[in-house]
């Protein structure tokens, strides 16, 4: 019997046009990064001259920067010259023809998560013809949005269709030289999402990449830009609970959110990329820069994330609270199992008066995983009456994992009220025995305890997402005990 001590996802470049998916013929660029590569990427996307110039400047800045080493992460040196920055779409001939050709292990996971059959095909990268269903869903969805005046399209499409908006806001939240990975993304970004909510509009539905079918393969350098005009409201869902097939190891995405006066953006993420096998081999490296700018008075940006995937996660969704009375929120559940490493957290920068922020971070470590929470709360001198509440809890399963908390506070206005609470707990052998004595299996007991631990964050997620997230957590921790 077990005792406690023994225990414990081709860049397919497609254009979305009126519900049809077209493939563009491209060849793969040879590995390595230079100005020629940046020019080639921009040319293939028919980008305007200003954007090419923008990319080139980012590239030059990147050259002068150094990869950060301060995170509590260990990984082999990334050979940037061995990565191909633009790869040909995988032709249908190379893709699985049906689910019969897909890795059974992946299918098993879909089954556990209750993913509908047609979705499984899409997620597993089965050739497009086989995934017909979702196209009609997406078309209906697009009509409803355009009636409301909402723009929701791929980033590449936005560059062509709405260049003035892209040019006005791109890089205004995450400057090109913000950090090493941001500079890299700015130089070579592949594709992503663009959202524009006009003044006073409440987006009629949750926006999800799930419905933007061409978003399934946005490549490794994803770029998202969301603009909420005065008094507008939008809820955006990124990711999917099902693990996606992905051949790119390095992912460096950028998400920029802009909320003007009285606007609200709710951004929810479920990240479930391939974490690698039990020995950490083959997992994805995820270096993301996500930042929200509460530019207007009384605006609100809320980040909710459930992170279970990737071998390495380096991610700090942040809020710049510039407008008076603006509100920033960060709710996070991060799970690391086996050899996964995560260094995550948030930054709340209080600039305007009476700005408020809430941070709720729940970290779960199992196996030999290492997890760090890094949170910065900065109150600028002009931010009178700023308030922050931080709650940071860690749950350890087993004795070989670790949780580390690094809270940073820079308070430059004496009227600020800052509260920080942190707890670390373990699932004890006696708790598990108690549940088992009541007829509940060890695995169910662990899930019950973990879900209980995370409920404060789950309740922030849109309903269907919350249910999926819960199931995902259970799958991620499978085998953590026993």
């Amino acid at each position: 019997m077990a005792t406690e001590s023994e225990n414990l996802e081709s860049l397919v470049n497609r254009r979305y046009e009126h519900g049809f998916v077209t493939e563009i013929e491209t060849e793969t660029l040879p590995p390595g990064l230079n100005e020629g590569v940046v020019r080639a990427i921009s040319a293939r996307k028919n980008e305007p001259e200003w954007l090419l110039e923008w990319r080139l400047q980012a590239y030059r800045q990147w050259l002068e920067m150094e990869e950060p080493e301060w995170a509590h992460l260990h990984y082999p040196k990334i050979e940037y010259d061995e990565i191909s920055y633009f790869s040909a779409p995988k032709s249908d001939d190379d893709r699985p023809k049906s689910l019969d050709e897909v890795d059974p292990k992946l299918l098993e996971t879909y089954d556990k998560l209750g993913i509908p059959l047609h979705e499984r095909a899409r997620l597993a990268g089965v050739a497009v013809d086989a995934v017909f269903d979702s196209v009609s869903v997406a078309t209906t969805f697009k009509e409803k949005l355009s009636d409301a005046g909402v723009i929701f399209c791929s980033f590449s499409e936005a560059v062509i269709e709405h260049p003035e908006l892209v040019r006005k806001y791109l890089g205004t939240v995450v400057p090109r030289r913000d950090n090493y990975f941001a500079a890299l993304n700015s130089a070579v970004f592949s594709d992503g999402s663009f959202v524009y909510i006009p003044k006073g509009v409440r987006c009629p539905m949750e926006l999800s990449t799930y419905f933007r079918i061409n978003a399934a393969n946005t490549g490794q350098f994803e770029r998202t830009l969301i603009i909420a005009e005065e008094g507008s409201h939008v809820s955006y869902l990124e990711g999917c609970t099902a693990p996606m097939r992905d051949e790119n190891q390095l992912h460096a995405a950028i998400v920029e959110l802009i909320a003007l006066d009285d606007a609200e953006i709710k951004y929810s993420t479920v990240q479930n990329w391939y974490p690698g096998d039990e020995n950490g081999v083959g997992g994805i490296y995820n270096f993301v820069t996500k930042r929200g700018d509460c530019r207007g008075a009384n605006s609100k940006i809320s980040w909710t994330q459930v992170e279970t995937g990737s071998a390495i996660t380096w991610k700090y969704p942040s809020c710049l609270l510039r407008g008076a009375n603006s509100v920033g929120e960060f709710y996070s559940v991060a799970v690391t199992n086996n050899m996964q490493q995560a260094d995550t957290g948030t930054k709340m920068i209080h600039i305007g008066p009476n700005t408020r922020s809430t941070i709720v971070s729940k970290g779960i470590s199992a196996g030999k995983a290492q997890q760090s929470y890094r949170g910065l709360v900065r109150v600028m001198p002009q931010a009178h009456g700023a308030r922050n509440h931080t709650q940071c809890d860690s749950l350890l399963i087993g004795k070989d994992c670790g949780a580390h908390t690094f809270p940073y506070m820079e308070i430059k206005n004496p009227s600020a009220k800052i509260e920080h609470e942190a707890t670390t707990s373990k699932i004890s052998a006696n708790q598990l025995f108690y549940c088992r004595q009541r007829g509940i299996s060890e695995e169910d007991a662990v899930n019950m305890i973990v879900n209980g631990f995370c409920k404060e964050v789950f309740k922030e997620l849109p309903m269907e997402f919350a249910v999926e997230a819960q199931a995902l957590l259970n799958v991620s921790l499978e085998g953590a005990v026993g």
Partner: protein
Amino acid sequence: MLEINNLKSRIGDTEILRGLSLSVNPGEVHAIMGPNGSGKSTLAQVVAGHQDYEVTGGSVTYKGQDLLELEPEERAREGIFLGFQYPVEIPGVNNAYLLKAALNAKRKHAGLDEIDAFEFLKTAREKMATLDMDPKFLNRGVNEGFSGGEKKRNEILQMAMLEPELAILDETDSGLDIDALKAVANGVNSLRNPDRAIVLVTHYQRLLDYIEPDFVHVLSEGQIIKSGDKSLALELEEKGYDWVREAASA
């Protein structure tokens, strides 16, 4: 129903049960008494299947099967319930949720459908009323911040909901006020029927005033050294354990 034969068990290097035999039939109530550290809780934990206790000898059969071969959750689903001496707190896990999960695990094992949410709540509220328990306890974390007596009542609530065939209550009477003691006794007595057996581990006669046992056993140094009827408990209350120990070693 439960046949324990010459059972030996140890934790680490310390032998605690040293050849213990006990036979419990359906319908019977057994009281197990004995000095602190004699092995009463150990016996209860071994029967429930706690992993820290190693069985080094003897046998335990339950309803004709080798109990020691079963995982703790299988034992529970087969009808064994242990009321813990020290019920553990599980913060964040809703008390009602655990109760329902336990009930459904048992029902599934018996080939029954999951209990309907409405019916579950109705039954739980009824049982809580008989135990004088505020229904708000359903929405708290499992034993989280419960007082000693509240934890014990919660154990009895779980027992009442799960309707075990063999209930082992390890000092459920300790730390209870008089009213709580009566409420707990009520709970136990209402469970009593010809198909069920109850084993009470206790230090005090007063519990036995409310729940009349058929047999009383004295456990000392890992063995049952004397068995009798309810009068033995009265005698122990009066004279202590020394005379039994002397008689046993003589």
